[in-house]
C-alpha cells in the first residue's frame, strides 16, 4: 500500500475540527518518537487511530493536549490546529476550556476521591456548571456508577473507565480524545463502552479521536481511521476501506475474514510491513 499523506493546512475542509500537521516529538531531547505525523479529525465524526505498541499513539494524544512537558517531551516541529486555531503552544488547561478533552490511557482516575468528586472535577473548566443535574445526566448513561459511594480507587476496571468517560462528559467538550478505552474490560463492558462512545457521538454530537488496540471494534464504530507505525501514519481511509485492506486484515483484524485460532500460531518471520 502506498502511504497517503493527509491534507495540509490549505486543503483543509471547513468541517475539520482538528488537524495535526507534520509534527515531530522528542523525549529528553534525544529520543525521537513522532516523525512527521499528519492526521485530521472531522467534526461530528469518530476517527480511529490504530497502531502497534509503541507506535506513538499515546504520545500523539499527549502532544495534541500539550501534556508532554511533564514527561520531558516536546513538540519540535509541525503544528496542531483546532477549529482553525493554532494550539501547538497553548496550555493544557486552556485547551480543556476550548473543548478538547483527553481520556487518558490507564483512565487517569483520581483514586483517593469519590465518584462524585471525580465527576465534579470533570466540570472544573466550566465554573457555572449545574453540577447536580449534569451528574445525574452522567448517571443516566452509567447507572452502576451511582451505587458506588466509596473511593474511586476501589472501583473495578470497567467502572473506572466509565467514570473516566463520565468525567469527560462533564466537561461538555466538542472533541474527546480517548486512549484505549476498552483496555482491560470484560467483553460485555467493551461492547458497552463502545456503545457509549457511539452514543456520545450520535446523541451529543461530540467528535472523537479514538486510539484503540481493539481494531475490530474501533473500526466498527469509527467513520475514518488511521494506521500508524513507528511515529508515522502509514495508511488512512474510511473505516470501511481500512477493514477491507488486506494488510490491515492480516495484522489488525486477524486473517482474511476467518478467525485463526491462537493455538495454531507458530513462530514465523513476519511479512515486511508498510515501512
Amino acid at each position, binding site marked *: 500500500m502506498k502511504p497517503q499523506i493527509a491534507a495540509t493546512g490549505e486543503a483543509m475542509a471547513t468541517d475539520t475540527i482538528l488537524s495535526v500537521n507534520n509534527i515531530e516529538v522528542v523525549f529528553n531531547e534525544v529520543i525521537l518518537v513522532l516523525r512527521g505525523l499528519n492526521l485530521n479529525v472531522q467534526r461530528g465524526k469518530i476517527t480511529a487511530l490504530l497502531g502497534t505498541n509503541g507506535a506513538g499513539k499515546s504520545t500523539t494524544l499527549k502532544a495534541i493536549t500539550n501534556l508532554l512537558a511533564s514527561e520531558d517531551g516536546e513538540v519540535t516541529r509541525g503544528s496542531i490546529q483546532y477549529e482553525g486555531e493554532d494550539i501547538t503552544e497553548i496550555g493544557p488547561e486552556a*485547551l480543556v476550556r476550548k473543548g478538547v478533552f483527553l481520556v487518558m490511557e490507564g483512565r487517569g482516575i*483520581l483514586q*483517593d*476521591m469519590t465518584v462524585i468528586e471525580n465527576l465534579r472535577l470533570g466540570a*472544573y473548566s466550566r465554573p457555572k456548571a449545574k453540577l447536580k443535574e449534569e451528574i445525574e445526566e452522567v448517571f443516566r448513561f452509567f447507572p452502576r456508577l451511582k451505587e458506588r459511594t466509596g473511593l474511586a480507587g476501589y472501583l473495578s476496571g470497567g467502572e473506572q473507565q466509565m467514570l473516566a468517560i463520565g468525567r469527560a462528559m462533564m466537561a461538555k467538550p466538542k472533541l474527546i480524545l480517548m486512549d484505549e478505552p476498552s483496555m482491560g474490560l470484560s467483553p460485555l463492558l467493551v461492547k458497552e463502552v463502545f456503545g457509549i462512545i457511539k452514543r456520545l457521538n450520535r446523541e451529543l454530537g461530540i467528535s472523537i479521536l479514538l486510539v484503540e488496540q481493539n481494531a475490530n471494534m474501533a473500526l466498527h464504530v469509527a467513520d475514518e481511521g488511521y494506521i500508524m507505525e513507528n511515529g508515522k501514519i502509514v495508511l488512512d481511509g474510511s473505516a470501511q476501506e481500512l477493514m477491507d485492506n488486506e494488510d490491515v486484515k492480516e495484522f489488525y483484524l486477524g486473517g482474511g475474514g476467518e478467525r485463526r485460532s491462537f493455538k495454531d500460531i507458530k513462530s514465523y518471520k513476519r511479512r515486511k510491513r508498510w515501512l
Partner: protein
Amino acid sequence: MKWELFFQLLINGLIVGMLYGVVAMCFVLIYKSTQVVNFAQGEFLVLGAWVCLALVTNMQLPFFLAFIFTLIFMVAFGIIVQTVILRPLIGEPIISVIMVTIGLSIFMQALMNWIFGNDAKRFPDVFGTTDVINIAGLNVEVAYLLSLVLSVVIMAVFFWFFRFTRHGLAMRATAFDQQIAQSLGISVKQTFAMAWAISAMVSGVAGIVIGIVNSVSNSLAFVGIKVFPAVILGGLDSIVGAVVGGIIVGVLENLAEFADGQYLHLGNLYTIAPFYVLIIILMIKPYGLFGTKDIERI
C-alpha cells in the same frame, strides 16, 4: 502527684498545642495540594512576625493595619516563592523539591538575620493591659486564646475548602497526579500558587501570634521543626490530624516537662519526648492518626 502543676501544664500544653496545630495546618495545606513538604515553614512564620513588627514599630502603623498588610505581603510572598522557586521543579522527584525548600529556608534565615538582626525583639503591647487571662489558675496570653479561636476558624474553612469547593478539589487532584489534573483543565501553576499563598498567609498569622507571645527572633523558626512530629502524628494529609497532632505535641511536651522536672530529672525531655512518641505512634499507625493510607492495588 502535684495535681495543680499537672493541670496547669496540661492546659498550657493544650493551648500551645493549638498553635502548633495552626502551623501544622499550613504544612498540610501545602502537602495536600502540591505534595511538597515545606521545610521553610518555620521561616515563613518568622517572616510574618518580623514584617508585622517592622510595620508596627518602624512605620508606626496601628496593629490592626499592620496585621492586614502583613497578610497581603505574605500572600504575595507565597506566590513569588512558588512561581520563582517551585514552579520550575514541577515534575521533579519529591526529594529534589524537599531540598529546594531546605535551600529556601537557609536563604531566608540568612536574609532575615541580615535585615532584622539576630536579637529578640519585643512586640509592643498589642492588647493593652489585658495581656494575660487566668484560666483555671494558669495565666495565659490573650494572643494564644485568639489563636485558639483562629485555629478553629481556619480549620473549619480548610475543611470546607477541600471538601466542597472546586478549587479545593482541584488542589487535591493536582496533588494526586499533575498530569491528570492538567488533563481535566486544572491549571497546575495557578493551583500551586494559590496553595502557597494561602499557606504563607496562615503562617504569617501564626508567626505574629507566636511573636507576640515570645518576642520576635529568628530562632522561632524552630517551631517549623517542632511541628513535624505534629503533622506526622496527625497524618500528613489531614487537616483535623494536624490540629490533633499539634495538641498532642503541645501536651506531650508539657507532660514531659512535668515528669522530668518533678521525678526523672533528666533534663531536656521537654524537647525530645515528642520524637520518641512519634516513632512509637508511627509503628502502630504508619500513616499517623488520621492520614489516608495509600491505595496499594496491584
